């Protein structure tokens, strides 16, 4: 079974040379730490920077330079700053190659819910609806089940949706799955996790074809 760091580490392997990537808050943010050194990748933050660098040193901290999580950041050589309309133009116009974000629920039709729990305080969707509404390559990073042990990979989402038919890949603490023909297709098992465990933790329809390899991190 993977921890959050492990999920990020596995997702990092999906990041290809030449990709522009938008990372959501939470597990996705950790992905940047695990991207191979020998490929070129640029991170976009929707508040208006392309070419995000590491966190600043004390001396480098600049209140005018933050990421979408409001953390202080730095800019790499070749970076650029722009306004919010152009930033979402990049996203909506499908110029960003990969979007990695968290979810409360994912359904086998590719629907995703990650912004609102009725009856609870709602903070808002931020840029999530724009991202899932436009991105062609969306990886969801999440725990396979919630704290009560209930599956988060469902036949159909129960929470208010963030987007429809948009998720292409899911990496959880238990498995790597693609959405194929309206079902979850199991691709890899987390270290030490059996297909049976994954089946049990998945409420949606699961395609299991042949031997399912254990993932290599």
């Amino acid at each position, binding site marked *: 079974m993977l921890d959050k760091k492990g999920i990020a580490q596995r997702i990092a392997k999906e990041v290809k040379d030449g990709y522009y990537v938008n990372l959501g808050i939470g597990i996705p943010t950790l992905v940047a730490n695990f991207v191979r050194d020998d490929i070129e990748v640029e991170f976009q933050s929707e508040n208006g920077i392309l070419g995000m660098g590491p966190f600043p040193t004390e001396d480098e901290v600049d209140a005018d330079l933050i990421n979408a999580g409001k953390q202080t950041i730095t800019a790499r050589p070749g970076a650029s700053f722009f306004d919010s309309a152009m930033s979402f133009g990049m996203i*909506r116009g499908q110029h960003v190659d990969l979007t990695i974000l968290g979810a409360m629920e994912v359904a086998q039709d590719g629907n995703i819910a990650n912004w609102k729990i009725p009856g609870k305080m709602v903070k808002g969707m931020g840029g999530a609806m724009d991202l899932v509404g436009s991105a062609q390559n969306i990886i969801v990073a999440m725990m396979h089940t919630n704290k009560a042990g209930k599956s988060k990979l469902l036949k159909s989402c129960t929470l208010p949706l963030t987007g429809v038919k948009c998720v292409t890949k899911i990496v959880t603490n238990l498995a790597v799955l693609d959405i194929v023909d309206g079902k979850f297709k199991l691709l890899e098992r987390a270290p030490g996790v059996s297909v049976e465990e994954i089946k049990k933790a998945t409420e949606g329809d699961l395609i299991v074809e042949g031997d399912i390899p254990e993932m290599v991190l």
Partner: protein
Amino acid sequence: MITKTVNNVTEALDGVEDGMTFMLGGFGLCGIPENSISELSKRNIKYITCISNNAGVDDFGLGLLLKKNQIKKMISSYVGENAEFERQMLSGELEVDLIPQGTLAERCRAAQNGIPAFFTPAGYGTEVAEGKEERDFDGKPHILEEAFKADFAFVKAWKGDKAGNLIFKGTARNFNAVMSGAAKITVAEVEELVEPGELDPNFIHIPGVFVQRIYQGDNYEKRIEQRTVRES
């Protein structure tokens, strides 16, 4: 040169009234119009509708207006880093209209550019799409969104000249650039007000025609919400 300078924040906010709709630039606390917000608080302007990506924190930014119950409605993409906000929202004192961040930005940009409405895929199939026209383009569903209407836009720039030309710094550009010229009156406060000709005309982010009033701000706190550092 058409001069846009006003002497101070008091003159800059001339005409501001209860019940108006304001746009306020900034992302989190980054690039917020600190001086204009202070003045709105001081004047105790009430029943405000705020179009702003976020709602500040308890003791800074729009939190200052929330604390005094000046805000009737927030139109934002992400809120609630603010206990008082949460209390007012749950109690029903505060109306909140949550919309996708890119749609928020584009509806400002549409107002700035005289585009009354546009189609976007963001929010299709969600509660954001309720009551909105839906249409497919190239087989992909979209919803129709309209330009915002606001009485004042309050923006903050790094540098500006007396002709109203603005330059922003880093990620403090965000909504400040798209809100400039998107309301009936745009009020810009700047960290450094210079003479016309001092800014390179090739690198103006917002031309002065989009700005009605510009003033030299002061006492910028520029608070950081998530100071995150690495070992040097």
